[in-house]
């Protein structure tokens, strides 16, 4: 079965500093990878996804993630964070083949706290 490891449960950073949230997944022939973000008292929302093609994917608010097949990683990065980026971030993976989001496996989450 597929598994996802988010190595850091909490990441505190100062505003305008760079940040990297780490995500590793168990190997599979083909995978689809996702980052979801959860702001306080809200549900999750999709931040970005890798399905195929370019290994670097970007979101509209400055986050990017790079699919690294040899390292089985999909780390999330942002060069300069804002207070409003404070949230919990979930990495998720789905193996290729039949089926839909019922096959999605979520990591345990990383709480990003941006301090002034």
């Amino acid at each position, binding site marked *: 079965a597929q598994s996802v490891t988010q190595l850091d449960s909490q990441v505190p950073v100062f505003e305008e500093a760079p940040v990297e949230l780490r995500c590793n997944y168990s190997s599979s022939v083909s995978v689809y990878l996702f980052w979801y973000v959860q702001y306080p*008292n*809200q*549900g999750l929302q999709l931040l970005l*996804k890798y399905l195929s093609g370019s290994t670097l994917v970007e979101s509209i608010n400055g986050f990017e993630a790079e699919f690294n097949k040899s390292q089985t990683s999909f780390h999330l990065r942002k060069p300069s964070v804002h207070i409003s980026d404070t949230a919990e971030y979930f990495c998720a993976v789905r193996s290729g083949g039949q089926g839909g989001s019922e096959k999605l496996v979520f990591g345990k989450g990383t709480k990003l706290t941006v301090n002034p």
Partner: protein
Amino acid sequence: NAGVTQTPKFRILKIGQSMTLQCTQDMNHNYMYWYRQDPGMGLKLIYYSVGAGITDKGEVPNGYNVSRSTTEDFPLRLELAAPSQTSVYFCASSSGTDNSPLHFGNGTRLTVT
């Protein structure tokens, strides 16, 4: 722009009581899901549905039941509440294509004492 709506937002139950968590979506999505979120544990899939009249178990279905009589609604039923069911419950929907994003409601925070 309602999306996925969950009610209630909060609920406290006594052990052994029953309740139904409501979920409705207005996006005409075929696929709907129920997750529970526990601190530091991520999300676990309870039940899902690929269309009206069709439901299936997820990773942690014990103690829960669902039904899907319409495309819009996907209620989750707890028959005999237990302290282990204290959690935040999220309903989500998707259009059902392979990698279409999940759209989440804002959650129901349930405490069983």
